[in-house]
C-alpha cells in the first residue's frame, strides 16, 4: 500500500507540473468563462445591430391602411417602444441620425400587397419578427372587423396555436443541460484514462521500466498510476466546476441562472451517482488503457494501439446518448447495465429522475466486477509486456502474454 501511495504521489506531482496539463486546464477554464458570457456577448451584438430593450421605433401609416388602429399597439407587450407618427423617409432618417429613435417603419400599399419599409442605420439589421407578426395580425383583424364580424368571432377564427410536448415517461430536468454535463463527463473519463496509457508508454519508451520493476511490483505501478492520474482528474474537474460556478454567479443574469438551476435537476442523489460512476468509469477505461499502453514500444504506435479503446468509449457514449431520447426500452436497460456504457448512461438517468436505487446498485455491481476482471488482465499483460521493446504486439501476442505464467 505504501508503494502504491508513493507511485500515485509521484504520478500526481509529475502530471500537475506538466505544461500540457496546465495549458489544457487554462484553455478549458477560458472556454467555460466565455460560455457563461455567451448571453452577454449576444446581447452586446444584438444591441449594436438589432433592436434591443427600450429602443424606440416610429411607425408611420401615411395612407391610413390600418384605419387608425395602430395606436392599440402601445398596449402590446413588446421589448421596444413604439411611436405612431406620420413621417417621411427623411424625417425618420434625421431622427435615427440624431439618435432619437433606433428605427422606423413606413407602411405602404404596393399593388395588392402591403409593404413595410424598415428604415435603419445598420446594414446587418432585420425587422423584428414579433413586430412583423403584430402588424400582420392587426391588419387582418382590422379588415375582418370592417366586414362586420364581432371581436369574439375574430378570436374564434384566429386563435393562437401553441405546442406542448408531453412524454409518456415522466422526465425531469433539462435535456440540454444534461447533454452538456454528459459530454463533460465523457471527456473527463476518457481523457483521464488516456493519460494512463500515455504515462505507461512514456516509461517504456524512455526505458525506465526495467529500473521501475526492480523497485516495486507491476501491480503496484499500475494501481499507483491509475490512482494518481484519477486524483489529478478529480482536481481538474473541481477546478473547472468552481470556475463554472463562479462564472455563472458573476456573468449570468440572475433570471437566467435561476432557470438553469431549476431545470438542471442536479440533485444530491444525481451528484453522488455521477461521482461514483465517474470514478468507476475512469477506472474501467484506465485499466484498458494500461493494457494497451504496456503493449506499445514506440511513441508512434500509441495511436494505433489506443484506437480500439477509443471506439469502445465512443460506442458506450453514443449508446448512453440514445437512452436519453428513448428512456424506456431494451437498449436503454442494456446501456444502464453494460459496463462500457453504464458510466455515461446511469448519471443521465439519475438526473432525469429515472434511475431507482436498485438500478444503480445492479449497474454498480456489474461495473465493479468488470473493473476487477479488466484490472487482473491488464496487470498480468503489463507484467509480461513491459520488457518487450521489440516489434509491435498483436492480439495473438497479447493472449499469449496473458497465458504466460
Amino acid at each position, binding site marked *: 500500500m505504501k508503494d502504491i501511495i508513493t507511485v500515485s504521489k509521484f504520478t500526481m506531482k509529475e502530471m500537475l507540473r506538466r505544461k500540457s496539463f496546465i495549458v489544457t486546464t487554462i484553455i478549458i477554464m477560458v472556454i467555460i468563462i466565455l460560455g457563461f458570457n455567451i448571453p452577454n456577448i449576444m446581447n452586446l451584438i444584438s444591441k449594436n445591430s438589432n433592436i434591443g430593450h427600450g429602443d424606440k421605433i416610429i411607425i408611420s401609416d401615411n395612407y391610413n391602411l390600418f384605419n387608425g388602429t395602430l395606436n392599440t399597439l402601445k398596449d402590446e407587450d413588446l421589448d421596444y417602444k413604439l411611436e405612431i407618427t406620420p413621417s417621411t423617409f427623411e424625417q425618420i432618417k434625421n431622427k435615427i441620425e440624431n439618435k432619437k429613435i433606433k428605427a422606423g417603419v413606413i407602411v405602404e400599399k404596393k399593388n395588392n400587397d402591403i409593404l413595410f419599409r424598415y428604415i435603419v442605420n445598420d446594414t446587418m439589421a432585420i425587422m423584428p419578427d414579433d413586430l412583423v407578426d403584430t402588424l400582420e395580425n392587426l391588419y387582418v383583424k382590422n379588415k375582418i372587423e370592417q366586414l362586420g364580424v364581432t371581436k369574439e368571432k375574430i378570436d374564434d377564427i384566429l386563435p393562437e396555436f401553441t405546442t406542448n410536448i408531453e412524454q409518456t415517461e415522466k422526465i425531469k430536468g433539462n435535456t440540454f443541460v444534461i447533454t452538456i454535463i454528459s459530454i463533460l463527463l465523457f471527456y473527463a473519463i476518457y481523457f483521464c484514462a488516456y493519460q494512463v496509457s500515455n504515462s505507461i508508454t512514456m516509461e517504456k519508451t524512455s526505458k525506465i521500466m526495467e*529500473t521501475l520493476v*526492480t523497485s516495486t511490483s507491476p501491480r503496484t505501478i499500475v494501481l499507483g498510476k491509475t490512482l494518481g492520474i484519477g486524483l489529478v482528474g478529480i482536481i481538474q474537474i473541481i477546478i473547472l466546476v468552481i470556475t463554472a460556478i463562479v462564472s455563472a454567479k458573476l456573468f449570468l443574469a440572475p433570471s437566467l441562472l435561476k432557470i438553469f438551476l431549476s431545470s438542471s435537476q442536479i440533485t444530491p442523489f444525481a451528484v453522488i451517482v455521477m461521482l461514483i460512476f465517474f470514478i468507476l468509469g475512469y477506472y474501467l477505461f484506465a485499466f484498458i488503457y494500461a493494457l494497451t499502453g504496456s503493449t506499445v514500444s514506440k511513441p508512434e504506435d500509441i495511436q494505433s494501439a489506443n484506437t480500439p479503446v477509443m471506439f469502445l468509449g465512443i460506442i458506450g457514449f453514443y449508446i448512453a446518448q440514445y437512452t436519453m431520447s428513448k428512456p424506456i426500452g431494451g437498449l436503454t436497460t442494456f446501456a444502464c447495465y453494460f459496463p462500457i456504457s453504464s458510466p455515461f448512461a446511469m448519471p443521465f438517468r439519475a438526473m432525469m429522475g429515472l434511475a431507482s436505487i436498485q438500478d444503480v446498485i445492479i449497474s454498480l455491481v456489474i461495473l465493479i466486477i468488470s473493473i476487477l476482471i479488466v484490472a487482473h488482465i491488464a496487470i498480468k499483460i503489463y507484467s509480461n509486456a513491459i520488457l518487450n521493446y521489440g516489434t509491435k504486439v498483436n492480439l495473438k501476442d497479447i493472449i499469449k502474454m496473458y497465458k504466460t*505464467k
Partner: protein
Amino acid sequence: MSLVLKNVSKKFGTKVAVNNISLTLDKPGVYGLLGTNGAGKTTTIRMLLGIIKKDSGDITWNGKAVDRKLVNFGYLPEERGIYPKTIIRNQLIYFAELKGMKKLDAEKAINYWAKILRVEEYLNMTAEKLSKGNQQKIQFMTAIIHNPKLIVLDEPFSGLDPVNTEIIKNVIINLVKEGKYIIMSAHQMPTIEEFCSDILIMNKGKAVLQGNLKEIKNTYKANRVEIDVSEDITNIIKELKLEIEMEKDKQYTIKINDESIAHKLLNKVIKANIKVNKFEIKKPTLNDIFIEKVGE
C-alpha cells in the same frame, strides 16, 4: 551471504535463452558475466533479479529463493533510462522511497553520492538537459542509493568517457571494500580482468567457461612474447622460425607455443649485443580466451 544460481534455464517460445546455468557468489567481490550479444546474460540477470520467471532451476540469496517482492538488490540495467522531464532529485527520491528509504535518508544519500559522482550541480535540473554520461551516473545512483548488499551492473561503463569511467571504477572498488556483492556484465575485457575474481562466459545460453579468473588463466600456456629492442631483430626471429604478430618501432609481439623458445630468443639478442628495453612472456588475455571460447 551468498547468491547461488543452480541449473537455471529459460526458454522464449522454442528458443532456449539460458541453458542450465549455475554460479555461486559467496564472498564480497565482483563476478563477471561475459558473452556476445544474445548470449543470455541479460536474461540471466533479469531472472536473478526476479523480473522474469525461470523455467527451471533454483536462484537463492542467503539460502532463500529470490522473489521480486522480497529482493532489494541494486540494479543498473543495460537499457538506460530516466524520466526525461522530471527533476533529477525528485526521481532519485522516488526510486529511493520505492526501495524502502525515508525521504530524509534519501536526500542525505543523494547528496552524498552526488558529490562522489560529481553530479551535484545537476540535481535540480530535468534529466533531458544532461549529457548521456551524466544521465548514466544518475542511473548508477539509483542502483546504489539504498545501500543494497547485492548490486547487479549490466554494462556499467558503456558510453562513458575516460574521466567518468574512472569515477565509476573507484566507486565499484570502494563498494567491494565495503563488502558488497556485485554481478557485472561487460564487453570490455580489460575492465573485467581488473575487477573480477570469478567469471562466467556464456555462448548461446550455455556456460562455456566458468571459474576463478586467475586459475583459468593459469591453465593456459604462454602464447606470445613482447620485446622492445634498440636494433632490428627480424633475422633472429626468422632464424628461430617464429611468427611476428605485430611490429612497431622495434617493439615486437611474437607468437610462441613454448616458454623455452622465448628464452632462446632473449639469449640470441643479448649475444648479438642488442640492447633490450623490455622483455615479457605473456599468457593469453581474457580477450584471447573469450574469442577462443565464443568465436565462430
